Every structure is written in structure tokens, then in C-alpha cells.
């Protein structure tokens, strides 16, 4: 038994016939071929699979593809516009917010949600905000710096960040 779904991923509408049990993360990785969203646990505990579902961060291993039918997904691949990185991506790069990079897409998407709601977060707000996302490499300190760096960039008037976003 399969079900037809239409899911818009990074602005591109994708139709597929899927098993009802197919996880959104597998839909993104297998059907849409977007492997930037990683699988670290499949149990909603690590956050590596975090994507935006209609603008809010969700763990895509805990959402079924059929639940995303008719909705909008943004994955890490959808953040940059052409050569221009998103401010959060720049922040992670400048502050060395990643080592092995496996948690990074999820961290970036989670930070996106965080900054949407707290444009100017304190260190402890950042630490609380990303505490559903695990990183085994960095000890988080550079991730906190990366998110702050991004917050500063994003709070500058758009004109100041020529061509950003």
C-alpha cells in the first residue's frame, strides 16, 4: 500500500508514491536525493536530521513523509542562494562551529529556528535552544560562537550585508 504525496522541498515541488511508514528523512535522502540531512539515531534524540517544516525546526526522523504532504520543507541545501552562504553557514565557518560536520546541517537548521524567535540570543539561550541537537566533536563552545556571529550578521540592516540571502 502506498500513498501519493506532494512535498515542496527547498522550493521544488516533489511528487512521489510512498509507503505510509516512510520517514521524512528517508524521503529527503532517498526520493529527493538530498543527503545533507543526516541520520544519527532515528529516534528523535540527536537532531542530526533537523529540517524546517513550514519554517519550524523538526526532527525529520520523527515525521512521516505522509505527514509532510502538501507542506514546505527547507533542508540545509536550501539555505544558501547560489554562491552566497546564509549568515548561519558563514557563522559556522568563521567560528569553526564544526569538526566532522555530521551534526552540522541539523545544528544549522535548529539555529535557524532559534534565531527566528530570538534574533539576539544570549549564550545560555543559545545553549538551551540547541540542546536537542547533539555534537560529539566541538564541545559546543564554537557552535555558540557561530550562532552569535550569525545573529550579529542577521541583525545588521540587509543593505550592510550586500547580497546576503
Amino acid at each position, binding site marked *: 500500500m502506498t500513498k501519493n504525496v506532494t512535498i515542496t522541498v527547498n522550493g521544488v515541488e516533489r511528487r512521489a508514491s510512498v509507503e505510509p511508514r516512510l520517514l521524512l528523512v528517508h524521503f529527503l535522502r532517498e526520493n529527493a536525493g538530498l543527503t545533507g540531512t543526516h541520520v*544519527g539515531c532515528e529516534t528523535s534524540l540527536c537532531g542530526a536530521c533537523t529540517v524546517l517544516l513550514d519554517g519550524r525546526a523538526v526532527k525529520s526522523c520523527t515525521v512521516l513523509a505522509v505527514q509532510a504532504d502538501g507542506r514546505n520543507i527547507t533542508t540545509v541545501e536550501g539555505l544558501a542562494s547560489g554562491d552566497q552562504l546564509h549568515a548561519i553557514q558563514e557563522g559556522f565557518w568563521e567560528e569553526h562551529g564544526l569538526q566532522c560536520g555530521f551534526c552540522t546541517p541539523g545544528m544549522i537548521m535548529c539555529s535557524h529556528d532559534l534565531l527566528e524567535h530570538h534574533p539576539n540570543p544570549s549564550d545560555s539561550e543559545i545553549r538551551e535552544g540547541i540542546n536537542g*541537537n547533539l555534537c560529539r*566533536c566541538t564541545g559546543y563552545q564554537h557552535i555558540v560562537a557561530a550562532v552569535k556571529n550569525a545573529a550579529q550578521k542577521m541583525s545588521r540592516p540587509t543593505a550592510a550585508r550586500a547580497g546576503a540571502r
Partner: protein
Amino acid sequence: MATPAKSPTPQKKTNGKAGNGTWVGKRMKRKEDPRMIRGISHYTDDLKLAGMVHCAFTRSPHAHAEIKAIRTDAAKALPGVIAVYTSADTTGLGPVPCAIQMPDLKVPRHPVLAEGRVRYVGEPVAVVVAEDLYIARDAAELVEVDYEPLPAVTDLEKALGKDSPLVHEQLKSNQAFTHQLKNGDVEAGFKKADRIVKQRMMNQRLAPIAMEPRAVVAEYLPGENRLTVWSSTQIPHLLKTQISLLVGLPETAVRVIAPEVGGGFGSKLNVYGEEGVVPWLAMKTGRPVKWNEGRRENFMATIHGRDALNDVELALKKDGTILGMRARVLADMGAYHQLLTPLIPQLTALMHAGCYKIPAIQIDIIGVFTNKMSTDAYRGAGRPEATFNVERIMELGAREMGMDPAEFRRKNFPLPKEFPYTTVTGLTYDSAKYQESLAKALKLSGYDSLRRRQKEGWKRGKYYGVGVSTYVEICAIGPSAATPAGGWESGTVRIEPTGKVTVLTGASPHGQGEETTFAQLVADQLGIDPQDVNVVHGDTLAVPYGIGTFGSRATAVGGTAIYMATQKLKSKLATLAAHLLGSKPADISIGRGQLTAKSGKRIPFGEVVLAAYTARNIPVGFEPGLEATHFFEPSNFTFPFGCHVCSVEVDIETGEIKIEKYVAVDDCGNVINPLLVAGQIQGGIAQGLGQALWEEVVYNDDGQLVTGTLMDYAIPKAHLLPEFTLDHTVTPSPVNPMGVKGVGEAGTIASTPCIVNAVCDALSPFGVRHIEMPLKPERVWNAIRTAKAIPAIAASAEAPRKREAVRRRA
């Protein structure tokens, strides 16, 4: 920059610039990041090959059982299933290798799929190949296995008892090996001692938890007789050799690629049964096969770390001088040996002198089989265990002598002029200034005021503690004579005709950032931009044979190989430039994109390079092309060191620990990229604190894995950690020309005892000497409640009163 201590080796520091060049020493953003932050890099699980199928393993739910029968019909009948195999089919495959040789080491056969018996929960019993992942996993559950459960043993001491169940019956005991390291007159030291301090300490079992679980993809092309295996590994070359032995193909037919690897921490410094089975399946089915471990399997079937029971004794003279040290270590091997399992506790023995002058030492180790997953290298691998033992017993020694723990340590340090320093365990520490890092860390932490506040706190019923840990670790592993599979590393540098540079390294970075640091190093040597240097690693067909990334060796050994290869090219470039400029090679200098003769004549770098390839105008006997390879054999290990200080407050009513301040002063020799060094240290500290405070792999008495998910096994989260304050000292190593030491494990090694010392210090008024890790609130609370003595230090009436209050509430 400090001058290196006198080299114990013929290797002299040849270029003072290695520590502070145009690029070396700079905080440079990583070259590998753009692909990762865009989500377009490729980890093993991201690969998709035409016709690829998936496999899944059926694993034992029992810690110890006889396999009576396996029925695969139901699994085979599921639509989409291609094949199901058990050990009856894999007779020629394996066994899983162990690289360690020791006189009395027992190495029981370790099959890739269980043969007649299972010995730990998660041992693979059957494997299913199917069209997709979901079907493969469904079918793995349909494999029916009749087990007859047998008694299991998980406790180290019980396993050595007479009536213990035997993990391997044919061995007649659960003892895997014994190992003794003894030097100096230990008995005399303990006889002379004014005080003897003893402590039993359990270094609990840990799970490495790289965020990327293991994954393997294999493809076999029979026409070309070419097996390609992509694996999330730290050691592609060693794995290639082992896979050829496992599956029985000539090594020339096997290519291993470590694509992007999502963390390892030692857990991928191994050769796993699955890394034999998946290639074998590809050969058997004629289809590319993918296996992706998943977190549950990762907890059950990827190696664990630590798990050693330690009884440590320190003999002291009245004035605090160390007279001797003894330790007995029971080290849990798990059910089988993996690649390096029995080696890890030997590293504990080697590093058991810490950074102290110890005249006599005796370490006795017994390796023990239990019905658990194998232990093996986990970040630090043997050194965290040693450092924990040493730093805890030093802490207790200071307390026993009524000395300040920092002062007590300083008293027993060797002096800088004593380096290279030969330890009682037989190592030669290359260079160090322990006094300097200690002083710096004390100052940075405001140690004296922390101590004052601690005393004042007692009056107010506040329990602050200060923990100090001065560590030394063994890195740059290492001289081949002291390593199981060769300790050298390869580096190839090729200047392409366009002047761009390709670097091939046998190291296999998986988060450490060597695509950047090696580019910095080569750029400085050749006077070019790091963006023009491309570092290639992890592909056995592209890169000369190498050893891999572990033991904080990539920069000190792998980086040096590249440095040496670059020197060969520099001399070639100088010869050619001299020819073109009508000068002498010795008069040519390289830098800023050009080669300059003493006469002032110069020629662009690119022109010399092109001339080497067009080869129309070259000196007689000049070998065309610009490629050089060096296999660097280190003459010694390197020994980074440092001092960490942390302050905590313990809530005696709840047992909760608040980390108030964490200061780390590390010395890893010369630094190539301070940004990356900071990242390594911060990540390391986090992992060490994880062990101290939260992490523990728990098996119950029946051998069931209780901590099988990230819900039950608590790795540090962002909000649980404080901000770390970092600083460093720089003592270059004389062992390699760049003066670098290594930094991958320092944080983990230092931080665990540091915070345990702080917590026990905070609770010293209650007479708490030691609390077993992880220091969960419940354990801390219980330790306060059951502490026996109330020493004079708690002279304030407050402490005992509080303690009574806690007791009453219990």
C-alpha cells in the same frame, strides 16, 4: 619561541619558521567547511550506486547462549529479499582480526557471524540482503533463531572467580592475559614510606558515540577483479589489507575509500566483522551493497571504551616526596578481542608515572573476558585511565599529607632541565615545563581566591571545590618498534604543472581539519597560498600506503612526512631555479610565489614548475616532474602536557554539581592553527566531563545492555557545559622538525580527573574521599550521606549540621 630541549634523537629542528610562518600559526578558516555547511559533502551512507541493495543484521538478544537452530525461510520469503546468510555460509570469511601479540595472550576465534554460540548482546547471527533498507530490516527480524540461554558474566571480579561462567569454555578461564610493568625497588619504597595512600577506582565503560554511526558500501566488479569498499573508518589502508585477508582477494584487487567520516574517537580505528561481510555480500550477490549501522546497533556492536577496575597505591615520604606507586588493573576485554583490545590497558601501564618523579613502580594488569561488547581505543585509549588513577591518587596524597594539591604536584615534577626525561615506566618524555603550565592555570583560574572562597563557603553551608589536574600524554603514535602495525606515516607532495599542489596523506582525518592545516604547512614551505594546496586522503588507490588518524598522530607524524616530502621538492626547485638563473642551488630562496637568487635575480614559482614538466631546459641528470614522497618514521613519541583547573559548587541537598569555571592550559608544542587546536581541546574537555558526570554503559547481571539509546546514555548537551577558558604554553617537541606534539586527546585526558577532584574537594568536609563515575546527583548525595568521618577541616558547625539534615531527610 622557546628553544627546543636537547634532542634525544638525531632529528634536529631544521626550520624555526615551522612555528610561525605566513600561514602556520594563523587562525585560518577550514578548507573543508564549505561543502559541509552546505550539506553537499558525502558520508558513506550518502552514496548511491546503480543497482545497490541494502543489508541488515540479525543480532543476538542474549548475552550468552547456545544457538540450537536458525530458520531463514520466513525472511527469504519476504518480497524484496535477495538472500539470507548465516555462519554456515561464511565459512571462508574472517575471522575478525586482533593485531596484538603478547606472550600469554589468549585470542579466541572471533567469527564474523556467530558460530554455534553467542557471547554478547548484539553479536551478529545472520545477515539479510534486500532491495531496500526497510525490507532488509523487516527480514532481519523474521530470521528465527532458537537459543538456549547460558549463564553470563559481566562483572570483572566475578569473571575471575572459580565458579564463573566461561565466556570461552575452551580457554578454561576468563583471563585473557596478564601484564606486569615493574621498575625500581617498589617494595623498599613502600617499606620506607611514612604514608601509604590507597584507593580503588572504577573507570567505567563508555560508548564513543561518533555522531555518524558506522556505514559500509561495497561494490565488486568481477571483470576487473576490483573490490571497492567505502567505509566510515579512521584507517583505510590497514582496512584494505585486512579486507583482502578477510575475503580472500589479493590486496591489489581491493580499494578502500574513507569518504567524509562523521567522527571516530577511536571507534573507527578498527576492523569490524561487518567490514568483511558487506564486501563478501557484494561479491556473492553481484550487486553493490550498503550497510548502515543505526544508533541501536552502534550501542551494541561498536567497540566500547575504558572499563577497568583499578587499585592504586602511593607511597609517600613525610615531606610529600613520592617513593613508589603500585596499581592492579582488571581490564574488561568484552567477549572477543577487536583490533587493539588487549593493547589499551598496556598504555595505561606505560603512562602511569604521569608527570611526576616516581622512583619505583609496579603495575599489574589482568585482561578479563566478559559477556559484553569488546572494549578498544576510545579517545585517549589507556591514557585517560592512567591519568585518572594518577591524578586522583595525587589528590588523595596531597590531602593525606595536608598539602595544597597544586603544591604537592609541583614538588614532584621533574625540572625543565631534566628533559628529555626518562620515566620509571621506560618512556623518554621529549620536552616539558610542567611548572609553567601549572602556574599559568592557577593564575588564570584565580586559584588562591577560589581557595579563600571555599573556606568562607563552609561557614555559610556552601560547598565549593577546586580541582587540579596536571597531565602528560603520549602522542604522535609512534615509533614502529612500539606499535602493532607500523607507526610511521606517508606523505606525498606533487606540484602540478599549473603550480597547484596536491598533497596525499596516509593520515585519515575525520573532523580534525588536516585539509587545512596540511595546506598551511605546505603553503609556507613553498611560499604559496593554502588555497592552491589540495589535500587528498582516505583513498587507498590515490594515496601511498599509510597508517591513519588516531593517537593524536596526524600532524606530528603525517604532517612531518609531508614536511619532509616538501623539503625534497624545495631542493629540486632550487636546483632547477639555479640552473635557470645561472646561480647555485644553495643561493636560492623560495617565498612569495617566486624563487630568488642571492644575486637578486628572480623567477616566478610557476615558471620553474612548468620548466620541470616541459623538461626542455633542465640540468643534466635532473629528474623531470615535481613529486616527492616521504615515509616518516618518528624516533620517539611526543608528550603534550598541561594543567586544567576547575571550580564547582555542590548542592549537598540534591547532589547536583555546578561547574563554575573551567580553565585549561595546554601545551601541544608548536601550533599550526590555533582555531583548530581550540576546537580539539574544547571537544576533548566535553568528552572527559561526559565521562566524569554523565556517561556510563550499563549491562545488567544477565548481560542485557541497559543503555542502548541516546535517552539512556547521556552524552553532553550544550546547556550542561560551561564555557571553557583556554590558554597555552609552547614547548616545541625536538622529535620532529616542526616541533609539534598533537592535541586530539589532551582535553579528554585532563578533564575527567580534574572535575572529580573538584567535587571530592568540595565534599572533603564530609570526609568524602572518592565517588565512582559518573558523578550523578544520586551518587554524590549518597556519598555525602554515607561518608564515615567528619574531619577537622569541617570545624565550622555548619557542615556536620547540614550533613545530619541530609541524613534525617533520607
